[in-house]
């Protein structure tokens, strides 16, 4: 960490937007030894907020079929395996609404609430609007003129051309070309708060320790190559003092408009959500009452989500998270807006054909295998303006190159399935006509919206064509399964006409 330079001066006017690395709810919820360990590091170190005893990548094994990275935890990890689970700032609110809690990604998270069953909550999200607490996810910022170049060295995205206020889905890559984690990278709009290029990313909770170790090791190398105090260095901050809410569903925009978000440097302009399209982001403040008394600090308002519906993700200062959630619930009213938990979130994302890290993609999956070739930007592909130059590029680019141009393709592919009879769950074998094993299911459930049993999984290359009839073994019996194009339910993103 010796080379991590101290935080750059930020203009006082920008304080409201600053991502202060200390004084976090998660920090306070940690055992004393963890706090002590953190405070012994320089507070300005970008990784001072990284609470993990870093997982070290000890070896990378190659075999003919896949690459597997072996991680060894130096001791207890921050993923919550052997630590008491953390609470998000909304824990009390969840309990008040009758949440059923489960441990997830090191946190105690609501899986559903007492007012609606999982499928009711799922359907509610498709028809009205739901509010999800996703504060367990890890929010980061990468700041500095070389931040896009650094991120381009570990992802296949084109970030130097990503306009401010835009987001892209991306993947952090191993040197093997396999996926460390999936993430959304947002180029934050310029403001006095972020006078330098700042990229805001959200990564998964379950991969927290691994991701932070990965980022720190690559950032160390990056910053070591740039002298101390050099403005070319990248500052990485884990925004632990921010919570995250997802407001999703067809009524999400209507409800959020009623909240009267304020934008502009003076916070005096009304934000027009009609011009905030899918995959874009703006900074705004939310009045906490109709009378304009009490306005929040800076929210990152992204038109994004994990449900396939129109909706928003709101990154909110942790100490204002509950106030924002209550304000939205009050504005929405129980006829329009309900809290929803991880149960509905999982079935919604599956219907939308989205991957869940650790299930549908992991350290052994490459982007092309996962059907995520589209996250590899045109500019980064063979012949592109910024060809290659990222971890695993050799494999990733070969695999995304069309076969007719000599691309080598992949040996397995992620596909969607509709299964007859019993729902197929994670781990169920996919078999061919003769009963031979051709793949495995990685996620599956009865789809509340379609009434069909949907699943995703991997099959041998060649079997991915929509309409291909396969079988899935559920409790020893072969059930008919048809390869089906994803998403299973039409997505309803708010795009520019």
């Amino acid at each position, binding site marked *: 960490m010796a080379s991590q330079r101290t935080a750059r001066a930020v203009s006082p006017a920008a304080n409201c937007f600053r991502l202060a690395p200390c004084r976090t709810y998660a920090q306070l919820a940690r055992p004393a030894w963890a706090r002590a360990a953190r405070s012994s590091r320089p507070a300005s170190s970008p990784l001072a907020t990284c609470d993990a005893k870093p997982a070290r990548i000890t070896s990378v094994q190659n075999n003919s079929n896949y690459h597997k990275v072996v991680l060894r935890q130096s001791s207890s990890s921050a993923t919550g395996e052997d630590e008491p689970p953390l609470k998000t700032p909304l824990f009390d609110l969840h309990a008040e609404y009758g949440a059923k809690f*489960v441990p997830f990604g090191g946190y105690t998270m609501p899986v559903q609430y007492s007012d609606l069953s*999982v499928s009711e909550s799922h359907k509610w999200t498709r028809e009205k609007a739901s509010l999800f607490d996703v504060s367990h996810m890890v929010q980061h910022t990468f700041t500095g003129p070389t931040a896009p170049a650094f991120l381009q060295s570990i992802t296949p995205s084109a970030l130097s051309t990503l306009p401010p206020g835009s987001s892209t889905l991306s993947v952090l890559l191993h040197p093997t070309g396999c996926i460390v984690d999936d993430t959304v990278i947002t180029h934050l709009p310029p403001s006095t708060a972020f006078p330098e290029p700042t990229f805001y990313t959200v990564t998964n909770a379950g991969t927290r320790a691994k991701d932070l170790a990965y980022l720190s090791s690559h950032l160390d190398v990056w910053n070591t190559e740039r002298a101390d105090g050099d403005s070319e260095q990248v500052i990485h901050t884990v925004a632990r003092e921010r919570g995250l809410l997802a407001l999703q569903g067809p009524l999400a925009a209507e409800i959020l408009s009623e909240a009267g978000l304020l934008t502009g440097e003076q916070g005096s302009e009304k934000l027009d959500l009609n011009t905030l399209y899918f995959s874009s982001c703006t900074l705004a403040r939310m009045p906490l009452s109709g009378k304009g008394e009490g306005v929040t600090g800076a929210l990152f308002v992204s038109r994004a989500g994990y449900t396939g519906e129109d909706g928003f993700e709101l990154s909110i200062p942790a100490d204002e998270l509950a106030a924002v959630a209550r304000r939205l619930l009050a504005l929405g009213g129980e006829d329009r807006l309900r809290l929803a938990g991880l149960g509905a979130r999982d079935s919604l994302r599956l219907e939308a054909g989205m991957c869940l890290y650790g299930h549908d993609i992991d350290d052994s999956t490459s982007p092309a295998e996962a059907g995520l070739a589209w996250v590899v930007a045109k500019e980064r592909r063979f012949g592109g303006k910024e060809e290659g130059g990222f971890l695993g590029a050799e494999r990733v680019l070969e695999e995304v190159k069309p076969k007719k141009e000599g691309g080598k393709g992949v040996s397995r592919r992620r596909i969607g399935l509709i299964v007859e009879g*019993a*729902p197929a*769950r994670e*781990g169920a*074998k996919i078999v061919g006509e003769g009963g031979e094993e051709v793949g495995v299911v990685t996620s599956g459930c*009865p789809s509340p919206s379609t009434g069909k049993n949907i699943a995703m999984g991997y099959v041998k290359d060649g079997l991915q064509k929509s309409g291909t009839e396969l079988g899935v*073994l559920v409790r*020893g019996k072969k059930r008919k399964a048809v390869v089906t194009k994803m998403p299973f339910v039409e997505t309803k993103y708010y795009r520019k006409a």
Partner: protein
Amino acid sequence: MAARVSIARAARSLASSAAPPRQLRSSGLLCCGNGAAWQRSAMRAAALEKTSLRQELRRGFAASATAREKKYTEDHEWIELEASGKIGTLGITTYASSALGDVVFIELPELGLEVNAGDAIGAVESVKSASDILTPVGGTIVEANGALEDKPANVNRDPEGEAWIARIEVRDAKELDGLMGKEEYEKFTSE
């Protein structure tokens, strides 16, 4: 460790190569979501210790007088013997059905299926989880509640009545002796 053995047996007789035993064990009635195997395993481990202790204590007490009482398992199934003492009706408990959430699919056992106590005879599925139904006693399945195929949600409405799962010709009614009575089960689920 009787229950653990029977789960392994269930894995052999029902799952064949389809699902590893680990999965069967984790797909119990109170499991939530894909990643929640922990919950089930922990519960089962706790239940296992109690079972063996209880069975030790009861061995030797003839229970014919109480055999027709409705009995409950740690896996949240119930069984009730008919007057003849030969046929038992079984299903999942109200506690289990509410923990599962909305049931959307039921897999029923085939008629004539010969089973041992602890074998999986079918499954109950909600959006978030799949759970095996384990028979509390050995015997032969003589009837399955076909009405549930069209209306699986009945399991949420009346799990201990109309939404029974199957009827079984009981091989040895003594197997019911190791199970809990109503009060004991209520105590078990409130712990």
